[in-house]
């Protein structure tokens, strides 16, 4: 790749973009890309998963032109607020703390339980042991409040690896994320306990973006009403899919 050429093209692109006015209404959908089956990068290098399919349908119904971008979970709210993208669509549960900083649309996944998962056959002390969770999740808050020792990781993948290599006694995460991992572990991992924490999952948007919120809410409601949302949930969440 010729970087000088690319850099030159970029400078020209910015210059052209600077003189032309914004054409069409384009919405940048921000997701994590590391949380199957909610969202992940497929082998073609593109965002895939339940949220991709649902998000594309939302954009069709709301007549928006959407592009997908990925961002670390850790900085996903700051980058929304500073305008790097326009929505967070990343399996984010609605909480009152997050609601103070950003706004949420109507929920598109109903509240579903979180699982504690550990190596099969081990005795786990869920209130005194070492429990892994992803940074800045409702599960991390739950562990911190439960009295157990919390170890945090930047990606969900690393929380599972921590249980496998013995760094943590168990992991706490969304059941819909853990269920396929447990099912495919050939009996190595097992669900220890289910807990109900947090509300449903919704798109996060800037508090100043009321127009976008109204459009997306209408699209979500219409997908709930005609059953397409339930069909997609059943397709992607194979074990006990959450339903409206």
């Amino acid at each position, binding site marked *: *790749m010729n970087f000088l050429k690319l850099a030159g093209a*970029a400078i020209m692109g910015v210059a052209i*973009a600077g003189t*032309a*006015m914004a054409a069409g209404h384009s919405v940048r959908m921000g997701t994590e890309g590391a949380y199957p089956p909610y969202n992940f990068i497929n082998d073609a290098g593109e965002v895939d998963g339940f949220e991709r399919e649902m998000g594309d349908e939302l954009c069709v119904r709301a007549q928006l032109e959407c592009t997908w971008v990925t961002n670390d979970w850790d900085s996903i709210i700051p980058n929304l607020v500073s305008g790097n993208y*326009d929505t967070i669509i990343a399996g984010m549960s609605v909480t009152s703390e997050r609601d103070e900083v950003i706004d949420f649309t109507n929920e598109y996944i109903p509240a579903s339980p979180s699982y504690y998962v550990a190596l099969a056959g081990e005795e786990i002390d869920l209130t005194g042991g070492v429990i892994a969770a992803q940074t800045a999740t409702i599960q991390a808050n739950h562990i911190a409040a439960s009295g157990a020792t919390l170890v945090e990781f930047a990606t969900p*993948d*690393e929380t599972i690896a921590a249980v496998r290599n013995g760094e943590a006694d168990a992991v706490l995460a969304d059941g819909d994320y853990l269920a396929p991992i447990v099912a495919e572990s050939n009996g190595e991992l097992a669900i220890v306990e289910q807990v109900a924490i947090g509300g449903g999952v919704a798109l996060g948007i*800037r508090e*100043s973006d009321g127009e976008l919120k109204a459009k997306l809410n209408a699209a979500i409601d219409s997908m709930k009403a005609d059953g397409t949302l339930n069909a997609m949930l059943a397709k992607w969440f194979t074990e006990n899919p959450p339903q409206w």
Partner: protein
Amino acid sequence: MFDWCVDPKSLEGASWLACYLTTPKHANFYISFFTVIGLLLVTVPPILLFGFAGAFAKRAAFAPIRWIGSLYTTMVRGVPDIVFFLFVPIALDQGIEYLRHKTLCREQTGSVWQGNDFVVCAAAKMPLGPSEQWVHDMYGFALAVIAYAIVFGAFAANIIDGALKAVPKGQIEAGQTIGMSPRQILWRIHLPQMWVYALPGLSNLWMILIKATPLLFLLGVEDVVYWARELGGMKTQAFAYPHPDWRVWYFGVLLIFYLFLTWVSQIGFDRLTARATRGMAVAR
């Protein structure tokens, strides 16, 4: 890639691996190696620019310029890199968007800071919302280059300043006695002789720069570390090529890549040093 890769889950052994290693996602991984090398090559000129500017500012006859030079090198070298890498691109980005908002959208009088939100009008966005993804990527890459140039330029300034001081005074005085102007002394005596003293320090800086490239990941540029982590992580049946946690292999590849880069660099610096030493009265 290959035509037998249509149904990956029915494949085994070498053909599975051949298909797996040629997915478009792996192509992104391979391209990211060139992103890293490209960043290294693109940042060197601005680093030297900042370095020379800082060094000459520190040596300036006019006191306020001297203060600016000292402030730059002292402050930037004192602040942890990671703070700088997070701060500079965000501050630059918001600064550019703020100025564009003020010039392009004069009719909007409200503040751009609405509570937690930083809101500029659509025409002031950098790059514009509907731009192609590669424009967004190049913009992020350019911000990263500037951040690297500011940070590493401060170190380079100190190295160059030291090297300029290390050139023996007799050499300069010899130039004066045969009637050379200050400009001639600078270009014909001072700068050519400076390199031999600057190269050891600059080669250190280059090695540190190579090893600092994974910080790109913090700036949202999808570099080798991002793809190694993304590809190496455990993959469930939701993916076309499910596999267990293979990160150790991917990071092993990165280890070899970085060792190779530093090894090639060492050879290059040895040659540069040999060249800068030619005809000079310094012991090798």
